């Protein structure tokens, strides 16, 4: 722990970054107000806050994507010209964005070296490659420089993003929700990388919604609420409850799972394989699984190991290539999303922005995406928009979806509120089976709590739930029975009481399922 008061001279020397009085408005929204922050060499500072608290905006200002309305940024004591990513990069700021900024069709090396040489100077490929390989070795970021990004897993892409930042000789490394899409193993590797980086004198800003991660990695924690700094803590002097309270401004009650009372089997997969190439990642390979009423079945695994195929199967988007899918006690004659919905499967898709919602459609339109052909919304070929609107209002009301109203484009909602609408849509009509694929990814603690408690309530009301998550903690917190998935194969189920983190982690990495 760095002590702030060990001599003004020494700390001033070590201070690599200073944000001073940053204010940023978007139209009527104030994203940041008078935010100040300092960062010293070798230090990891975590930035916490609810969705929309202004974390990303602050980092975008620091990186020069946006220009602040007021305030200034200093790196190594020198003021950065506002609004110029180039200047920030040259001053040694490296940023790993919340949403990856990689060109899928290009190779790793091309992505990393992009923009790092003057236009008119070709060549230097061999040198660049050597440097990438050095960095990869030093920081534990193994990845093939010639691989196309499109062929990489999420974790590998994350490494490329970090390599990009390091390649530019970063002194300050910003990571915006880097672990939101990582498995525990990948996250651990990431933190290992960060430790190597700080050991070399880099300063790191880490944004995350996962409090335990923050507690384990950060030296210092800064909390934003509504764009303002509401607190700053040394990690040793705080705990998750304290942080949650700072973020939300109120206490958060963690959902407590009661033991399940499993009932009949509602859906069964018997040695189901899916066609290869139907989704990203592995296809299912003779997977067997049953979903019982009143039970949550968790699927733990590293992304790309067949979760998409499994989810696609339940969503109706994918048909089994072999094996049988049984609903109740019969195999459906045909299989499609529409049939899946009609069969009483409530579905929360992985990607809320592209699959779950239509960004430019209103909340009303999004609310009836699955049911617009049914009463009371459809009357013959016509849609009864007043009925649809009333329905959307009900969902908004019942689930506390914060939005300008049912006629607003859903694009304007934060991820958490978007997800609440999707959940409301999926749970409407009390489906007997629920598929929840990464339901809380990237959400803040308040939203997470709400979503999880709704899922538990649905279970207690007798729904069979399939929970797919790459977050082992979430799996352990909610599931009654756990499978791991690796290379398209499901491990035999393990009751939660008997599940051990280490064994699950091993199985997820391919060491358990086949052996078991």
């Amino acid at each position: 722990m760095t002590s702030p008061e060990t001599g003004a001279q020494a700390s001033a020397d070590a201070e690599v970054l200073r944000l001073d009085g940053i204010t940023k408005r978007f139209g009527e929204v104030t994203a940041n107000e008078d935010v100040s922050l300092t960062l010293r060499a070798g230090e990891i500072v975590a930035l916490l806050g609810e969705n929309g608290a202004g974390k990303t905006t602050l980092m975008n200002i620091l990186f020069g994507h946006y220009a602040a309305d007021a305030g200034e940024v200093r790196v190594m004591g020198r003021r950065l010209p506002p609004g110029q990513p180039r200047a920030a990069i040259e001053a040694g700021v490296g940023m790993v964005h919340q949403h990856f900024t990689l060109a899928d069709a290009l190779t790793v090396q091309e992505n990393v070296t992009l923009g790092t040489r003057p236009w008119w100077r070709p060549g230097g490929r061999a040198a660049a490659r050597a440097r990438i390989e050095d960095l990869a070795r030093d920081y534990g970021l193994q990845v093939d420089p010639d691989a196309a990004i499109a062929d990489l897993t999420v974790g590998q892409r994350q490494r490329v993003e970090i390599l990009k930042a390091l390649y530019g000789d970063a002194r300050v490394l910003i990571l915006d929700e880097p672990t939101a899409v990582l498995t525990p193993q990948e996250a651990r590797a990431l933190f290992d990388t960060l430790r190597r980086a700080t050991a070399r004198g880099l300063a790191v800003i880490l944004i995350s919604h996962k409090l335990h991660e923050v507690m384990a990695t950060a030296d210092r924690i800064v909390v934003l609420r509504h764009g303002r700094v509401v607190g700053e803590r040394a990690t040793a002097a705080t705990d998750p409850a304290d942080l949650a309270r700072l973020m939300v401004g109120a206490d958060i009650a963690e959902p407590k799972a009661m033991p399940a009372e499993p009932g009949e089997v509602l859906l069964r997969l018997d040695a189901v394989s899916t066609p290869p190439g139907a989704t990203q990642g592995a296809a299912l390979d003779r997977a067997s699984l049953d979903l019982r009423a009143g039970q949550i079945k968790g699927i733990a695994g590293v992304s790309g190991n067949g979760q998409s195929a499994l989810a696609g199967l339940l969503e109706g988007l994918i048909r089994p290539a072999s094996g049988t899918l049984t609903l109740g006690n019969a195999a459906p004659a045909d299989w499609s999303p529409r049939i899946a919905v009609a069969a009483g499967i409530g579905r929360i898709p992985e990607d809320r922005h592209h699959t779950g919602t239509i960004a430019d459609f209103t909340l009303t339109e999004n609310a009836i995406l699955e049911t617009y052909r049914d009463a009371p919304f459809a009357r013959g070929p016509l849609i009864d928009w007043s009925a649809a609107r009333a329905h959307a209002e009900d969902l908004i009301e019942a689930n506390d979806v914060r939005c300008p109203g049912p006629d607003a484009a859903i694009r304007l909602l934060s991820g958490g509120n978007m997800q609440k609408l999707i959940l409301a849509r999926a749970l409407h009509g009390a489906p007997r089976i629920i598929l929840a694929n990464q339901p809380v990814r990237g959400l803040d603690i308040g939203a997470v709590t709400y979503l999880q408690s709704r899922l538990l309530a649905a279970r207690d009301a007798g729904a069979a739930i399939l929970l797919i998550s790459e977050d082992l903690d979430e799996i352990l917190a909610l599931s009654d029975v756990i499978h791991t998935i690796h290379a398209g194969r499901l491990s035999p189920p393990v009751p939660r009481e008997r599940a051990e983190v280490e064994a699950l982690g091993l199985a997820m990495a391919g060491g358990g399922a086949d052996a078991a």
Partner: protein
Amino acid sequence: MRLEAIARPGPARTFGPPLIALGATLGVGMALALIAGAAPLAVFGQIVTGAVGSRFALLETLNRATPLIFTGLAVAVAFRAKLWNIGAEAQLYAGALMTVVLGTGALGWPAWALLPTLALASMLAGALCLVWAAWAKLRLGVDEVVTTLLFNFVMLLFVSMLLEGPLKDPMGMGWPKSERLVAEARLPRIAEGLRLHWGFALAVISAGLVWLVQSRTTWGFEMRAVGAGLPAARFAGMPVNATILRVALLSGGLAALAGFSEVSGAKGSLTLDLSPGYGYTGIIVAMLALLHPLGVVIAALFVAGVFVGADAMSRTAGVPSYVADILLATALLTMVLALLFTRFRVRRE
């Protein structure tokens, strides 16, 4: 530079930029008049007079807007579903072709039976010209921008071949021109003595119907959803492929109605230059209308008015007639920019 959406634009925001765009167009017109040695100051009056200044001018504008409404609708419907139909020109000719194939005596029916048949047959022909491209897009992943664009040339040559072959008017003295439609196959004038045929009314009605379909029906909802978010539409259980094919049928059919209306309402026979690029101008019309079916009517009137007015101005002022197309191009480029500024403001960063 950054664009920032304006939450509640006031009247100055809504009308200011378009007026500036019109002013800029006028400025270009005056500059061109000056270059060509004509009096620049009279230009404005001459354009307005030429477009709407007399009964004659107004009717000409309406007549010219008619096919543009159809092709504009065709494009708007397709683009709304992200089906990039650049082939309205070919579909228009397909409709025109069908109209002369069936309307020159092949069917000896009375007008009340013949006209709807011709319209529907045309729509079918136009639809076929687009459906294969949509199918190739869905099944084979072939980019429809290019297939529909290239097909325009194939279609034009095909029409040329027919007009110089089987469809050639034996009484046409050898010109590549079809026979004339029988009287029952002609769309009547809207009123006696008024040189405006029912094609115009049909166009406006079509716009209203398309709007109703898009905003009120399940099929319309699907069409918009597929365009706005294909993965979400598929996930929600919408019949995505069927919807795109339906869009193709509708879009191709609407474009074909332009051909039907021009042949049956205005020309009475088919020649190779039936359309001076109505299919392409339809794209402009649709985008000016921000893909809104009712906006298409207004945009088509605007485009037709600018062209007819500027063309008349070129004769009155003695400026080379190419000035009309220059002004049309200027008007639309400045207008799309102006429409952006009614919804966004520029912030310097």
